[in-house]
Every structure is written in structure tokens, then in C-alpha cells.
């Protein structure tokens, strides 16, 4: 059993090495194909050119404000949604009455692509930050509600029974037994919510906002400033990679007693 941790460590390292290798191979292939003209350089500029634009944009600070704008929208939207989502999810998980009252709306709104709410938000709040952020917040909200509720409902009744037998009641039972047992589901909801909110925020920026990485991609597309477009691509990809892989590792570390199946 002692070998498994070391094995997992080395496997993790190898995966990182392979990822780095993939980037190098992909970058080199791209560079060559573009330089030889196999790929049209107007659409697929050499990787070195993209890297140069990226480095300049990040150091000269031209891209930085857009990174900041996207991050700010992402964080504000998430913070706006997470707490109410957690509260509603917990209530729906604990009490059947709340669940039955709220379920029709959650069931209808959860599968709706939240980008579709953008026009309504634009009417309610006018074209501006508030509309963008609230649209993003809806994304996170429903994901958090649904996963939190499921997490609480899937708590093993035996655990609750044992807790009761040992004298845990009411609030104590919730904090000491139900919540820890539901934590994997809850953290998964928060993590997925954050990732999906990035998707919505970038789509909103692509469609209407005048700042942010989504807007950079859109405007660079319109003006065919392709190196700039791919530079923004790389930044969004890195952000997304952190939100998927990074947070997943964090979750696995926090919940060391849980084994999760590795789906990216």
C-alpha cells in the first residue's frame, strides 16, 4: 500500500512531462507547417509569432487589462452565485418541502444555456458590467444548487443514523455529519460552476462586451489580427486549464479520503 502514493506521484509527473512534450510537438509542427505555407499563414501564423505577440501583450501590458476584465467578471459572478446557491442547495437537500416548491424552476432553468439569458439581462440592466456579471452568475448558481442538493441527498442514511445514536442533533448533526459527507458533491458543484462561468463570461465578451479575452478574440478575428487572436486563445486556455485540472487536484488533496475517477 505504501507504494501507491509514490506510484501516483511519478505517474503525475510523467503526465506533466507528456503535456509539455505535447505542447512542444504541436508548436513545432504548427511553426513548420505555417512557414512552409501548408497552413495559410494569414489564418495560422507561425507559433513563434503568436508567442512574440503574447509575450509583448503581457509585458507591455496591452493584453493584461483584458485578462483582468475577464478574471474580474468571473470572480464577481461566481461570488454572487456561490453563497445563495449553496444555501438553496442545502435547503433543497435537507427539506422535501423546499425541494418540491423550488424543483420545477431548477429543473426548467438548469438545462437552459445561460448565455441565452444575456439579452434579457441587457434589457433589465442595460448594456454593461451588471448584465454581463449576472448572466455569468446564473451559470454558477444552478450548477452549485444542483450539485449541493444531490450531494446532501446522497449522504448515506447509515451515517446520519450513527451520528444520531452518538447524540448529534440538529445543527450539530448537520455540521459534523451531513456537511462533511456531502462535501465532495458540493466542491464538485463549485468547481464545475466556476468552469462553466468562464464559458459563459467568454461567450458574453465575444458577443457584446468591449473588453476581456473573449472580446480580444472577436475583435482580432474581425480585423484578421490572427497572432493576437491566438495569443488570447492561449491565455484563455491556460485559465481554463487551471480551473479544470488545478482545482480538481486541489479538491483531490482536500478530500484525500475520496477517490475520484479522472475525467480531465
Amino acid at each position, binding site marked *: 500500500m505504501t507504494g501507491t502514493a509514490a506510484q501516483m506521484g511519478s505517474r503525475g509527473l510523467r503526465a506533466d512531462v507528456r*503535456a509539455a512534450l505535447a505542447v512542444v510537438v504541436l508548436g513545432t509542427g504548427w511553426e513548420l507547417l505555417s512557414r512552409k505555407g501548408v497552413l495559410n499563414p494569414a489564418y495560422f501564423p507561425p507559433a513563434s509569432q503568436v508567442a512574440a505577440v503574447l509575450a509583448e501583450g503581457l509585458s507591455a501590458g496591452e493584453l493584461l487589462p483584458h485578462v483582468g476584465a475577464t478574471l474580474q467578471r468571473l470572480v464577481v459572478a461566481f461570488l454572487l452565485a456561490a453563497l445563495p446557491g449553496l444555501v438553496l442547495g442545502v435547503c433543497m437537500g435537507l427539506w422535501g418541502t423546499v425541494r418540491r416548491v423550488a424543483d420545477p424552476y431548477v429543473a*426548467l432553468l*438548469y438545462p437552459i444555456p445561460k*448565455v441565452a439569458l444575456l439579452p434579457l439581462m441587457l434589457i433589465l440592466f442595460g448594456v454593461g458590467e451588471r448584465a454581463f456579471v449576472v448572466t455569468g452568475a446564473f451559470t454558477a448558481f444552478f450548477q452549485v444548487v444542483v450539485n449541493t442538493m444531490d450531494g446532501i441527498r446522497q449522504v448515506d442514511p447509515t451515517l446520519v443514523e450513527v451520528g444520531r445514536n452518538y447524540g448529534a442533533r440538529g445543527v450539530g448533526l448537520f455540521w459534523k455529519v451531513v456537511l462533511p459527507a456531502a462535501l465532495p458533491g458540493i466542491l464538485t458543484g463549485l468547481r464545475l460552476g466556476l468552469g462553466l462561468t468562464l*464559458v459563459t463570461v467568454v*461567450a458574453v465578451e465575444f*458577443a457584446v462586451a468591449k473588453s476581456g479575452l473573449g472580446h480580444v478574440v472577436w475583435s482580432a478575428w474581425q480585423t484578421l489580427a490572427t497572432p493576437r487572436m491566438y495569443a488570447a486563445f492561449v491565455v484563455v486556455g491556460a485559465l*481554463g486549464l487551471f480551473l*479544470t*485540472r488545478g482545482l480538481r487536484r486541489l479538491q483531490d488533496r482536500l478530500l484525500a479520503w475520496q477517490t475520484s475517477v479522472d475525467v480531465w
Partner: protein
Amino acid sequence: MGSPTPRAGGVGQSAVLPVLSVILLLAGWEASAHAGWIREAFFPRPSSLLGQFQLLLRDGTLGEHMAATMGRLFWAFVLAAVPGVAVGLAMGVWRAARETLDPLFALVYPIPSVLFLPLAAFVLGRGEPARVLTSAVTSFFLVVANTMAGVRQLDRGILEAGIHYGATGHKLFFKVLLPGALPWIFTGLRLGLGFALIVVVAVEMVGAERGLGALLWLSWQTLKVRDMYVTLLGIGFLGLLATYGLEHVRNWLLPWQPKGGVRR
């Protein structure tokens, strides 16, 4: 043992609260609009929305746009599902395929898929194929990831039992591997279909003449709030169909599996 404790009153009882909740909300909405507590410019009363819905249904607007969206959704789903399952199975079975593709996919997967629209347009030109391809990207990765996880989580004992009883090659594949991985494949398909809908609507909002997303965008630009609500309802209907419809197919095809919760 094992069977859930029957709720008092069965289905009838548990359906009362949700229905009551919806009726009360709609009645409250109608009354407050009538009394002038909420602005009808933003929240038109439900009865007028019903009228608009009938109008758009009768003059064919809703049907036309919904058909366009459903067509794109269908092709995006096919484009994601067929290669997705194949690649996922290959990555689950062959270590070499897994170790080569996994780091590549992990890099591309987190990029919000709307951003692939310019790339797809470079390759395919601005038009329908580019929109469909864009909508398929993230779905493809979701299907691959879940299919691969489905193969990898298979109990080695079952595989060995299959081999022991003489299953080899395609027999082993179709009789043991595929049925074992099917529940996971279905999860991937459901998530993929839901995600494809998100991207289809977003892409339609950004640049398409037809489709529910386009109708939504048009109704914002012309400030037809009623049309907007009706369109949202149409998108919600598609969302429900995509999410719960596939789940029914799953329960029908995999009767030995416990009926899984839809949301994740």
C-alpha cells in the same frame, strides 16, 4: 431492504407542491403586472406571453427557428458522439493512444468552445459547417473523456472472466467491454448534448440569421420583450428534451442500471 420507503400518498402527494408552486408564481406575476407593481416592459404578464406564443407558433416563426437550432444541434451531436465514442474506446483500450492524446486533449478541452468559431471559419469559411463544427468541439471531448473513463473503470475480474470463458477480439469488445462502459458513455453523451446546445445558442446569437439564438438576439435588438420570453421558453424546452430525453433512452437501453440522477 434496499427499496426506497414509499412516500405517503405516492406520486399524487409529491406532485401537489411543485404544481401549486408554479401556479402561485404565475398568478402572482399576473396580478403584480396587472396592479402595476412590476414593469410590463421587463416582465410582461404570463397571459400576454401565452398570446404571443400562440402567435409565433401559428405564423411559423417559432417552428422555423426551432428547426434550424435542432438541425444544428443534431449534426453537432453526431459530429461529437460518433468519433468521440470511437476515440474514447480506443483511448480506454490502448495505452499508447491514451498517453499520446490525453495531454493534447487536456490542453484543448478547457478552451471555451465559442472561441473556436473563428478557427472553424478559417478552415471551412463562414457558414453552417463552421457553426456546427464549433458546437461539436467541447461535446467531443466530453464524450471522449467519459467513454475512456467508462472503459478504464471496468472491473478487471469481469474482463478476466470474459476471457476465461473464451471471449476474445470483437466478442470480448461487444459482449463485455462495450456493455460495461455503456453507462459512462451515456453520461458523456448527455453532457455532450447539453453542452452542444449551449454552444449552438451562443453561436447563433453571435452570427446566424436563423435559429432560436438568432431570434433571441433579434428580439433584443428590436426590444420585443415578449418574443424574447417565448424564445427563452423554446430554448428551455430543447434543454429539457436534450437532458431528460436522453436519460429516458438510457433507462430503456440499460434496464439493469439504477436510474441515475440526471444532473451532474
